[in-house]
């Protein structure tokens, strides 16, 4: 497990980027902050959105057909 943790490609890529002066440490941290912000916004959007209409379950399967719904 330890061996594979050391091979984790994400920290390895970060190390490679820093070692080769492709980006600065501050730039990488900025990228990470932006990702976290985007995720938080997505979660907030999901929590604040109403549940979908039931009929939407039979839509968006095909571009030009709607599947049969249920009558209750």
């Amino acid at each position, binding site marked *: 497990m330890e061996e594979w943790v050391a091979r984790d490609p994400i920290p390895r890529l970060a190390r490679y980027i820093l070692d080769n002066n492709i980006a600065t440490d501050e730039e990488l941290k900025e990228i990470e902050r932006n990702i976290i912000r985007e995720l938080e916004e997505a979660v907030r959007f999901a929590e604040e959105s109403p549940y979908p209409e039931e009929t939407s379950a039979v839509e968006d*399967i095909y571009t030009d057909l709607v599947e049969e719904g249920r009558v209750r």
Partner: protein
Amino acid sequence: MRQLTYAEAIREAIRNEMRRDPRVFILGEDVGKFGGCFGVTKGLIDEFGEELVRDTPISEAAIVGAAIGAAATGMRPIAEIMFMDFVTVAMDQLVNQAAKMRYMFGGKISLPMVVRLPGGAGVQAAAQHSQCLEAWLTHVPGIKVVYPSTPKDALGLLISSIRDDNPVAFIEHKLLYSLKGEVPDENEPIPLGLADVKRPGRDVTIVATGLMVHKALNAAKELAKEGIEAEIIDPRTLFPLDKETIFNSIKKTHKVVIVTEEVKRGGWGGELAAIIAEEIFDYLDAQIVRIGSLNVPMPFTTVLENYVIPNEIDIINGVKSIL
């Protein structure tokens, strides 16, 4: 009217759509220089080059997966699976990816792609190269399933399939490739979801698909000698299904025989029988008859193939059993 074989009609549909739309391209095993296992794509590489006629490694999952990626990013791929049987290896891509992607993205993406699937028995290709697996495909919401029986239908339906914005499984019967038939001078698309009355009749409705359409036509000729007029309906598209044309015929004849080459158990024919029983039961004057292949793997030798696959006698007997 001019004559083309079923294979030539498919090639013409591909060629004309590639000329018409630079986003259309083909990929598959040996579809390039070799021209495809059944020669369907012969010569296309000379006109369109290796970029648009792509030979792939022997990996059906990669072929369908690449087609999905291409379709998602704006191309209109036509993937060939050498034998329909090998769609098994690509089922994750087709069923879990292609069929689901639009739904999972809330309708924000479309996958205009065609997967060509040569199916069917009768060429001594044995159990792993002869299957009719249409029921597996019609079972999956998100895929359209097309199955032409004549050169004219193959041409018109493939044009529509290529222009369709959804994943389309296009089933071709191997024994039909050499069949010649009339096709219109101008290439006209035939809409998906439109059945065709291959023979009018008043006494019994026969719904048949693929090669079975031709066996049903032969059987109808024999039945006519005894004064029995069978109406033959070819759905042409298994999903979406033109229920109206099938129902109108049954409302006239009050009897229906369903003939498919697939193994009878769990087949598309059973689904159609259920739809008829559920929706127009009152119009039936007899039980629904299903004729399919025996519930066995397709054997190799002709003697056994002929025993397993439905033929004209089975269809005649099926009709007579409800008259």
